[in-house]
């Protein structure tokens, strides 16, 4: 199943609805890359609330989404990582690296507001 991507103002919101195969994750990456360009989006939110696991492939793909979006002038925030999922990711040895996270959609949007209002560079402030 294709992950629906909602356009909300300057942002794109991808809400994952069910467990995703590797192929579907790559499709999400490609869809987001295309839409960030088409809509000149300033921010991307990927909502992973329904995912009951995030393994190394999911993490690698989310990192790729954030990197591609950034090269196209857009910030990415992952929202909704469940506590057990976070626990297993840490045990596995996975980090999201550069990718920003927020607890839920609302906080994700607030974070994007902050990032994009400040010119998009989170390295310039701390």
């Amino acid at each position, binding site marked *: 199943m294709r992950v629906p991507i909602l356009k909300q103002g300057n942002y794109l919101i991808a809400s994952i609805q069910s*467990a*995703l*195969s*590797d*192929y579907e994750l790559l499709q999400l990456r490609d869809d987001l890359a295309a839409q960030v360009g088409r809509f000149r989006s300033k921010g991307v939110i990927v909502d992973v609330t329904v995912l*009951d*696991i*995030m*393994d*190394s*492939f999911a*993490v*690698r793909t989310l990192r790729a989404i954030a990197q591609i979006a950034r090269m196209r002038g857009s910030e990415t925030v992952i929202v909704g990582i*469940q506590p*057990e*999922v976070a*626990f*297993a*990711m840490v*045990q*596995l*040895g*996975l980090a999201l690296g550069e990718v920003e996270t927020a607890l839920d959609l609302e906080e994700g949007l607030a974070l994007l507001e902050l990032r994009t209002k400040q010119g998009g560079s989170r390295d310039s402030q701390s």
Partner: protein
Amino acid sequence: MTAKAEIHIPINSDSDIVTARQQGRALAQEMGFNGSDLTVISTAISEIARNIVEHAKSGEIILNAVNSPGTVNSPGKIGLVVIARDKGPGIADIALAMQDGYSTGKGLGVGLPGSRRLMDEFEITSAPGIGTTVTMKKWKR
């Protein structure tokens, strides 16, 4: 607890990875593992199943419930066993493959060492040209 039949899941493509981890979760749930362990078990299954698809193309995952009978000094326990086996290219240097961050592909190199951390027991046997078998166990707490 009566012994259940083993569950065999053929692994040939990326969608079989999803099937394997969901079946693993379902069995673990049936056995009464807690929520955090369910995620841990399905994450390890996902990594080991992906290794079959990525490094060996095809193989199978076998899920099983086991009883460890108690002794005078220790109570019995039940565990979930995951066996992943393939007749792929095998691994020449297992110690190297078990290192964090080591990958011969474009993976993150956490599948084997990370699954060992996630599960209670982890065993790997492999021979070049013959194939690879990973056996992992999680005991119910």
